[in-house]
């Protein structure tokens, strides 16, 4: 079996498994899993830039929150229906990502990290400054009867799960396809050695800009979907915390693997969920787990699997 075919089966298998879990798992885990899938889309957007292109952004909360507010504000203040509001959210994220990419890509390395962090911080403060519109940290709730997407009421458990699964599947397959395409290979080449890639005649600046825009747009779509599916938008999602989360998820799951983001989110989510039911000190457990993973699984969970057993993992 060729690696491409293996990888296609793997991705379809994961999607089928997620669909099947809806019928097997109890209600509480179904609801958790819907949230996990949306956050995994966010993590996949981040991974495209960090894992595949090698650009460490600490400002992805800006894109997530832009998508969230693009949809949220349109629905809350202007009574826009859900479908066009989703498009508005995604387009807002695309525009912001293009602007940030255009400016931030003039820097590299640690400066790129800090510039993106600063832009995200400015975005967070802007959300607070226009508190009259965004209601700041407190956030606002999107009316339940407005949350109908393509005829499905996504405030119900079933529709929400399958809406999350649909978005997840589209992004999951698209990224799996993208990273095998010539463009995806160019991104990996930039990650490994940008100088050499440029000398081979590739326009690395253009490729990186496209990567930032794609990554930001996917993260924005995750933000818009989060607001729509869970009916809430607030400035908490624009904080530094939400820029650090995808980095953690991706590093835990395995940077530069298609499965890594999902594994990372599941791991982190259930780690905190399970340990907080046992003890108050869930942060302590999460901290110790992070340290142990960096010590013993330096390439993340999926990265270790690839290194030890399945060399063909995409």
């Amino acid at each position: 079996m060729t690696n491409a075919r293996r990888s296609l089966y793997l991705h379809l298998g994961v999607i089928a498994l997620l669909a099947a879990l809806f019928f097997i798992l109890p209600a509480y885990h179904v609801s958790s899993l819907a949230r996990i899938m949306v956050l995994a889309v966010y993590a996949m957007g981040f991974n495209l830039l960090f894992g595949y292109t090698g650009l460490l952004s600490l400002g992805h909360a800006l894109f997530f929150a832009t998508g969230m507010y693009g949809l949220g504000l349109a629905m809350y203040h202007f009574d826009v229906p859900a479908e066009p509001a989703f498009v508005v959210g995604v387009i807002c994220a695309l525009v912001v990502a293009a602007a940030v990419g255009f400016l931030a890509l003039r820097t590299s390395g640690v400066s790129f990290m800090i510039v993106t962090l600063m832009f995200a911080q400015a975005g967070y403060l802007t959300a607070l400054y226009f508190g009259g519109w965004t209601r700041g940290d407190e956030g606002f709730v999107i009316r339940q009867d407005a949350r109908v997407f393509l005829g499905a009421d996504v405030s119900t458990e079933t529709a929400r799960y399958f809406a999350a699964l649909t978005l997840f599947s589209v992004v999951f397959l698209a990224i799996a396809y993208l990273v095998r395409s010539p463009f995806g290979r160019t991104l990996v080449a930039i990650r490994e050695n940008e100088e050499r890639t440029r000398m081979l005649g590739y326009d690395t600046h253009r490729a990186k800009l496209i990567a930032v825009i794609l990554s930001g747009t996917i993260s924005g779509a995750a933000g818009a979907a989060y607001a729509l599916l869970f009916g809430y938008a607030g400035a908490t999602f624009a904080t530094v915390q939400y820029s650090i989360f995808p980095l953690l998820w991706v590093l835990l799951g395995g940077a530069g693997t298609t499965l890594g983001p999902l594994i990372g989110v599941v791991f982190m989510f259930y780690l905190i969920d399970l340990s907080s039911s046992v003890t108050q000190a869930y942060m302590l457990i999460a901290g110790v787990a992070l340290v142990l993973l960096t010590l013993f699984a330096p390439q993340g969970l999926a990265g270790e699997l690839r290194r030890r057993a399945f060399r063909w993992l995409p």
Partner: protein
Amino acid sequence: MEFGPHLMLAALEGAVTAAILALTAMGLSIVFGVMRVVNVAHGEFYMIGAVLAWVVASMVGVTPALGFLAALVIAPLVVGAIAVVADRVILERIAYDPDRTIVATIGLLYIIQQTTLMTFGPDARPVEPPFNHRLSLPWFEWGENGFAMFWPWGLSITSYKLFVILAAIAILTALWLFMTRTKAGLIMRATQQDSETAQAFGIPVGRVYSYVFGLGAGLAAMGAVLVVPIQQAHYLMGHDPLLLSFIVVIIGGLGSLPGTVIAAFLIGMSDGIISVFFSPTLAKIIATLVVALVLVFRPQGLMGRVER
């Protein structure tokens, strides 16, 4: 109140912020400069410094001054020791790999924060300043009767805040003397320049890294001890200093010590002045955007060298 006295007050408050920030950011800068490690847990070392200051001051409890003095010595030493252990147990074993140190230090951040919450509790606790006189500040102006000195109402600063500024200057001078005039400082600078060559000349690079990491954390703790009589010790207080120190270190130029001091001064001052005269949130938005744009158009920072 008129513009002039207002500006002077804002500048003095800004100088206090700048003093604390310079100490904290200097710790981050040294660690980055010598070890090339981005220490996300730096704000938590600052936080334990403040918490330990409260612990020591309330244990010594003879007079506020004695308690504070004990805290100023003990807290940085303990925090430095914790950092050395963290370096040995975690960072050295992952070979200071950039990505992995970020995750590991985030893990460390969680561990320290939760441990403090479980032992120290969620309350904010004050430390009494060793002395705290209210000093009225004079203002000179050409009035109806010619040049005159008067004492505008409310234009005052406490003696403790002046002490913070002086203490920070003293500590930074001592640090500068240590780096430029002692053998240990020479070894540190050699490691910073080229750790492989330093190793070849018999410098124990691993040990130097541990001490540098401890020194960085100790500087953050000193800043925190100085700050607790003004703010209170709280288990979440490490967040803002971390972000601000990052900004300072980057704006100053990575690893450049004079750049760090200049940047801390600029940022502390502008924070003090802008938030007195404008809306604090708007001021912060403008400041962050300016920082981002400085980096976009001068990526090496104010005093940094262009990377080859």
